[in-house]
């Protein structure tokens, strides 16, 4: 092309650089890579999200107890600090790895990628990833798991779903835990379930008590395990 037909900005001129670079996309791409890695090794993976104290670790413990005879299981625990949760899960005789985020309020695909590189994926059938206790930030950061599970408990009150719609919008399964406490708490789980379905009409909702074990088998079934 003739150089006279190419328009170039004059030096010193204000110049708009069109970019279209998505900041969150970087994490999504890494999440896709994680998903690919996990699929390559035939690992079924589940991102367990929920508030602090909703019962994420208890649910994983229950699932591990139920499934460890049939599957080779590993778990990654995400917390700001400590290895308490990973140790709890590790007591059931499965491989565990703890990610301490230090400052961050959620796990991201890069941290999970690092963790995956430290696991022998060829010796794992199922991987549970326990996200940092938070119903807000994890919604923006997929990790590359096959399914995202959100755990809430009746002790958090009746309005948890409508207060945190985005995490439910991005979830593949919702668990309402501590169902044994609903009468004491005066919380109607049907109301929570209705709210979840207003946000995402086709989302499977399962009521559990990780204390008694109620509903845990249904969770395993809903995860295809």
């Amino acid at each position, binding site marked *: 092309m003739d150089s006279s037909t190419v328009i170039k*900005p004059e*030096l*010193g*001129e*204000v*110049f*708009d*650089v*069109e*970019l*279209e*670079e*998505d*900041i*969150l*996309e*970087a994490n999504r791409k890494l999440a896709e890579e994680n998903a690919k890695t996990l699929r390559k090794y035939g690992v079924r993976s589940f991102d367990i999200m929920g508030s602090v104290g909703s019962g994420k670790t208890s649910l994983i413990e229950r699932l591990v107890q139920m499934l460890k005879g049939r599957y080779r299981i590993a778990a990654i625990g995400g917390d700001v600090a400590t290895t308490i949760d990973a140790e709890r899960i590790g007591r059931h005789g499965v491989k565990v790895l703890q990610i301490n985020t230090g400052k*961050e*309020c*959620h796990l991201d695909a890069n941290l999970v990628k690092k963790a995956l590189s430290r696991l022998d994926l060829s010796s794992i059938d199922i991987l549970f990833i326990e996200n940092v206790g*938070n119903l*807000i*930030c994890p*919604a*923006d*950061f997929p990790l590359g798991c096959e399914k995202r599970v959100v755990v809430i408990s009746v002790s958090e009150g009746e*309005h948890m*779903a*409508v*207060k945190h*719609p*985005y995490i439910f*919008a991005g979830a593949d399964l919702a668990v309402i835990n501590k169902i044994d406490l609903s009468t004491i708490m005066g919380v109607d789980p049907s109301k929570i379930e209705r*709210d979840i379905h*207003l*946000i*995402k*009409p*086709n989302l499977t909702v399962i009521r559990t008590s990780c204390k008694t074990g109620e509903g845990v088998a249904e969770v395993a079934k809903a995860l295809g395990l």
Partner: protein
Amino acid sequence: MHELSVANEIVRVAIREAEKRGAKQVKSVHLVVGRLTHLSKEQLTFCYNLLKKDTILKGSRLIITEQEPTVKCGSCGYLGPISKVTDDELGLWAVSLTCPKCGEPVEIKEGLECRIKAIRMVLDKN
């Protein structure tokens, strides 16, 4: 809640682009943020202004445009604004992935982005 790390990434990209072009000054960084993200406009701006100090971005502004969510229905083909759930009595407001036309589940098309659309810079005369 994770605005600082996102703002850090915005600053990194903007500096990279400015250096690539030998810019002497950056005027503004234009960002599109979807309303379905948890990113707060105010906090992003606050973090950007903290991080831009002592960099080529120091005289620049972060200009954020919010993107309204749009959804697509696989059943009836609806493409448009997302449904909202409201309960005036409780003051509740939430989005719903239900099709406003036929009630079937919808897929999110827009509203999850955090995209640097453009960077306005002044090129160096040398």
